[in-house]
């Protein structure tokens, strides 16, 4: 653990309340049939044990959007390693964005999902992203690159996740990206 000043200036915290079970939220984060339905929409591969691999793949929509903007999209857009998996309560992993060379060079960041069941079927999901030494990625996940067509980061993803779990539908990826 580094000192407070170093870690905190580069940590982002997001929270959303979702009317769904902790299990449903856990599945939505860790299962490909769910991850392709919200946010950036790629399928994930999780080996849910310490040291297990994590990969998020580019969706077809993402590849198409990349091609239209004139840059190639790698197959594995995010990779990392599972640090702790305690379904359906806590998931800690490393996370590296490979979409962009500069961000890939910033290396692995640390991501924590905390899922806490509340009253009346409402579950609290908190995402803590520790982004030390990754200023470009920090900008991306905070939604700072939305106007460049890079999506709205965590708040956008979590808003869409809530909508999907509560209503069964999510945003149209292309429509959402073109709104930037």
């Amino acid at each position, binding site marked *: 653990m580094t000192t407070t000043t170093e870690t905190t200036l580069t940590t982002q915290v997001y929270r959303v*309340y979702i009317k769904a079970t902790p299990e449903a939220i856990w599945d939505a984060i860790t299962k490909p049939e769910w991850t392709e339905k919200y946010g950036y929409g790629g399928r994930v591969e999780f080996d849910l044990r310490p040291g297990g691999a994590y990969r998020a793949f580019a969706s077809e929509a993402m590849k198409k959007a990349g091609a239209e903007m004139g840059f190639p999209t790698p197959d594995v857009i995010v990779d990392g390693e599972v640090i702790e998996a305690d379904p359906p309560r806590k998931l800690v992993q490393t996370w590296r964005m490979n979409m962009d060379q500069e961000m890939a060079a910033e290396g692995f960041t640390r991501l924590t999902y905390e899922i806490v069941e509340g009253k009346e079927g409402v579950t609290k999901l908190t995402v803590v992203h520790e982004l030390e030494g990754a200023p470009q990625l920090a900008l991306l996940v905070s939604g700072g690159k939305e106007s460049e067509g890079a999506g709205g980061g965590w708040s956008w993803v979590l*808003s869409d996740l809530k909508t999907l779990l509560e209503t*069964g539908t999510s945003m149209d990826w292309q429509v959402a990206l073109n709104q930037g």
Partner: protein
Amino acid sequence: MWSRILRTVTDDDRVFKALADPTRRFLLDLLFVRDSRTLTELESELEMTRFGVMKHLRVLEEAGLVVTHRSGREKLHFLNPVPIRLIHDRWIDKYTERRVSALAELKHELEEEMA
């Protein structure tokens, strides 16, 4: 269905009420510039008692606009943009053509779980 609508209205109400105060907007602006601040740091920026600042922070926390997170011994305050995003997305969704989702089975599954 009605309970969901009513609950949503309540969530939005909390956000709008939290925003309807200049001190609380100022606190959010401070956190927007740089978040992960302690109560003492935030207090130093305001001409107000510690108790007063705490009260405002509590309203912001209840609206979900501020989230506290512990780092070592310190309780740090973070700006949480998700509630504002939810309001934004709801309005945008209203006016954009949405794909017809074939996720009806998921809705049913989740509603059954809830029942």
